[in-house]
């Protein structure tokens, strides 16, 4: 018997013995420990292999998305160039408006800047009351600043900041019973006060009795509002209540433009602080 054959026989004895022990005593602690160790050694292959393969499968779609994003970025850059002139005009108009307001001693609710924030938490008891966003004092958020949200390509009123933390702020939603905002009907110029009812339907009070209100009329923030800039959409008239002969005003129900339950991001309008020119 040559040396190779002898070595092969020894290997056979060792491997065979180990295999027989594994087969014969599957429930003993040492065999179970060996099995756990073998699993520990071999399991990374399917786990990391599977994840790697998944990433490779997603690679073509990721590349396609990257190319698409690049094309959209170029398109947006071109659009941005086109809006430069418009922006200059708007800036000039804003400055003129500020000059005139200052000359007439009118207070304005013009925002100083915009800040996007993510909704990180909602009131678990009632989603119509308040929510918390991930921007706070450190980001320059202050109490009473208006909060808006995009809906169908437009920005609608969501509420206002009522508490500010270090990196978070609480937003009192317009639908909360404690909320109220001066509003008007742009179609007829009648003014009123929009108040929350704890549901997605708002109530617009104090409309003059002679006001002609139609279902579907748009409701927007009033130019007289001290908190909100004018003409921000709040919602549309969804119902007109019967006139109470004992009251000197009428009330309508307003369907809010922005539904708090669908909010993911909000836009905070930062106000000019004291001393800002």
């Amino acid at each position: 018997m040559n040396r190779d054959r002898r070595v092969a026989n020894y290997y056979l004895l060792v491997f065979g013995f180990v295999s027989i022990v594994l087969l014969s005593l599957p429930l003993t602690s040492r065999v179970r420990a060996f099995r756990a160790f073998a699993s520990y050694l071999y399991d990374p292959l399917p786990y990391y292999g599977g994840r790697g393969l998944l990433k490779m499968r997603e690679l073509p779609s990721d590349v396609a998305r990257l190319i698409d994003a690049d094309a959209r970025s170029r398109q947006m850059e071109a659009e941005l160039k086109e809006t430069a002139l418009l922006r200059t005009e708007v800036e000039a108009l804003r400055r003129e408006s500020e000059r005139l307001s200052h000359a007439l001693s009118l207070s304005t609710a013009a925002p100083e800047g915009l800040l996007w924030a993510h909704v990180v938490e909602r009131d678990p008891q009632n989603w119509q009351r308040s929510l918390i966003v991930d921007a706070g004092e450190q980001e320059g958020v202050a109490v009473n600043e208006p909060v808006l949200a995009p809906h169908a390509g437009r920005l609608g009123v969501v509420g206002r900041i009522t508490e500010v933390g270090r990196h978070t702020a609480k937003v009192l939603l317009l639908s909360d019973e404690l909320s109220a905002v001066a509003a008007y009907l742009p179609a007829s110029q009648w003014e009123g006060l929009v108040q929350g009812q704890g549901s997605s339907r708002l109530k617009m009070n104090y409309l003059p009795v002679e006001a002609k209100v139609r279902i579907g009329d748009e409701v927007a923030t009033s130019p007289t509002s001290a908190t909100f800039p004018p003409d921000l959409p709040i919602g549309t008239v969804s119902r007109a209540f019967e006139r109470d002969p004992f009251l000197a005003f009428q009330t309508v129900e307003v369907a809010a433009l922005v539904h708090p339950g669908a909010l993911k991001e909000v836009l905070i309008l930062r106000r000019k602080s004291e001393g800002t020119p």
Partner: protein
Amino acid sequence: MRAAKALGLFAAGLAAEWLWSSYWTVFGLAPCLLLVMTVAIASYAGPVSGQCYGFFWGLFLDVVGVHTFGASALALTLVGYCVGVIRRQMDVSSPASQAMVVGFVSVAYAVFLALAGLVFERRFLWGGWALFVGVPLYNFLVAPPIFFLARKALGQ
């Protein structure tokens, strides 16, 4: 260097087996690449290499499976030993003979596993005719390219 090469071959075998059996099955069947590779390595490198690869590849199959932990390791060890010992009497130079050897060993491997179940779990681990015939046939078909790759990997 030899150890790294051996480890690389070992890992490549595991990866190939896992990939094929997970993603490229035909009618739910995949070849037992580790068995074919054990036969190929034992044919070219002898019984010691055949047994070493066979035992540790068999452990992988045992870890993946749920029955008779150790049976695949023992079966592939025996395959590595037997093929390695009688390799001088075998002709594995042509694709046809390689396929024949692998086909025969595959049937023996399937019978061995079923009998191991009978002995150690008291039930004949019969996977059905599809497995008993289909997998050896599959192994038979993939044997020539695997032998070719194994010969290249072993530098022969």
